[in-house]
Structure formats: C-alpha cells, structure tokens
C-alpha cells in the first residue's frame, strides 16, 4: 500500500497542523473521501466538524478532550473527533499531542453496534489508520520521518510503501 501524507492548508494554523493521507493512486485524501461519502446525508454534521477542525488548527490545538481517545491499539494515537450525543457521523484520526493530527475517514455509527468491529465500514477506516500509525512509528524510529524543530510538522519520507518495512 502506498501512502502520501499531506498537510491540509485550510485547517492548519498556529495552534496545530492538520494532515490527511492519499492511499495508493487515489485522487482524493482520506478526509476528502469522507466528505464526499457523507455530504448528502450528514451535511450539517460535516459543517460542524469542519468548524471544530478549523478552530483546533487556528486557536486551541488538538486538546485530548476534543477527541475520543483509545480507538486504536495502545499508544498508536488513533482517536475519533468527539461525537456529539445524538449525532451519527464518526471521524477517525491519529493524534500526536496537541500539535498535529492526521485525518482519516469514518462513517455513520449505527445505534445497534457497541464496538466498531461490528460495522464493516468503521472497522475498515479505523484499521487503515492503525496501519498508517504503525508505519509512521516505524519510520520515526529509523528517523526516516522526524519532527520539525517546533514539533508542529512531520518531515522526511512522507510518501512511502507499507511493504518497504515488511
């Protein structure tokens, strides 16, 4: 699997950098695909998420309380943007402190499910981010990817094949 991590210009600001990922030869990032998939059914929820992401980048940073953490493996940073009670849309991301988040995809949560593994779409999006987080961690360990001096950005091999380290 090919991954290319890019910084989202419209969300990133002084408080946090917000990224997303292109997978293989897709023309859209995971977050753009998330918008496309949900704009018809959940537009108002999307607009709310867009506002929160904008404020996170500009003013508040990615404070832990703005997210639902522990959505992945221990320590991998996979989280979800806080789900407002009564809403349906779930957005997964990888959170690195308050300075950086990588947006993935997500989908609608059904009331009937208790764990994300019970929903194929949510499971697919969540496990994809777990994999991306794992691959980034490997590259941070080998210093192929590093933190910028101000800790606001990832620098280095932001385009990679997951097979490279297998």
């Amino acid at each position, binding site marked *: 699997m090919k991954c*290319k*991590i*890019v*910084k*989202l*210009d*419209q*969300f990133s600001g002084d408080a946090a*950098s917000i*990224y*997303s990922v292109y997978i293989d030869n897709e023309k*859209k*990032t995971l*977050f*753009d695909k998330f*918008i*496309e998939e949900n*704009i018809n059914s959940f537009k108002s929820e*999307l*607009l*709310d998420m*867009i*506002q*929160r992401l*904008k*404020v*996170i980048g*500009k*003013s*508040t940073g990615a*404070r832990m*309380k*703005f997210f639902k953490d522990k959505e992945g493996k221990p320590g991998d940073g996979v989280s979800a943007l*806080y789900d*407002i*009670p009564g809403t349906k849309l779930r957005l997964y991301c990888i959170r690195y402190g308050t300075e950086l988040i990588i947006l993935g995809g997500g989908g609608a949560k059904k009331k009937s499910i208790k764990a994300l593994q019970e929903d194929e779409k949510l499971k697919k999006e969540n496990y994809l981010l777990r994999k991306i987080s794992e691959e980034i961690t490997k590259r941070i360990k080998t210093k192929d990817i*590093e933190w*910028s001096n101000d800790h606001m*950005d*990832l*620098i*280095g*091999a*932001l385009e990679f094949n997951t097979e490279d380290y297998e």
Partner: protein
Amino acid sequence: MNKKTPELYTSPLIEDLLNEISPEELKRTERKMMLAARIDDALKAKGMRKGDLAKALDKSPSEITKWLSGTHNFTVETLWEIGDVLDINLINIKEQRKDPVIFVASTMASINDSQKSPIQLNDYCKLVIDKNVTSQKQFEA
C-alpha cells in the same frame, strides 16, 4: 541533509464547506472550544479530574466529558457553578464600559455649519473621527 517538508494541499471540498460557514458561526464554535479549554486548564490547575468536577456538581462523568469537548452550549447558571468549584470567573459581570470619546466644545469649530444643527452624540463623535481631528483635547466620559 535537509528533510523534506510536508506538501501543502488545498482541498476544494473543504473550501466549499468553509464557504458555507459564516464568520459568526465560526466565532461561536471558537468561543465554545476556548471556554472548554479554559475549564480544562482550571481543572488541571486545581489538581482535579473530571470525575471530581462531576461529583462536586452532582453530574454524570459523561456530562463533564461533553462540557470539555468544546461542543456544549452552557447556561449561565452552569458557568457560575463551574466557576465556583474551580475558583475562576467564566462570566465577567463587572461593567465593561466602552467609553465614548467626547471632544470639548472647541471641536465644534471644525464642523461644517450645515452640521451644527442638533445631532446625536454618536453622530457627533463619528463626525469628529471622520474628519480626523486629532489635535483637540479629549477626555473620557
């Protein structure tokens, strides 16, 4: 060796959605999130956890989670209660005067005759500002 910096991407889909959000809406969201951040900081400063706040206010922990998520519309009463527990002032009810700038009578000399007719104080101040009168002595009301 210099490491490659991230590529910047401007998404047309995000742009379309951002264009549908008014500055007022964005400001409201920002205020809610900043307020949640302030409460969260005050909790940490007091060495309290959200469970402690829930207990002190007889609320469920999930309610406090929502408060701290930056998505909650607080009532004034709730903000007072939180402020009392955390020893912070989340609503400043002391009078915040936006003092109008009043110019002394001599300023009138610089106003056109046609505008010497009775005018509202606000109009008068605006006139003075519009005419960029800077040399007149001014004092606060």
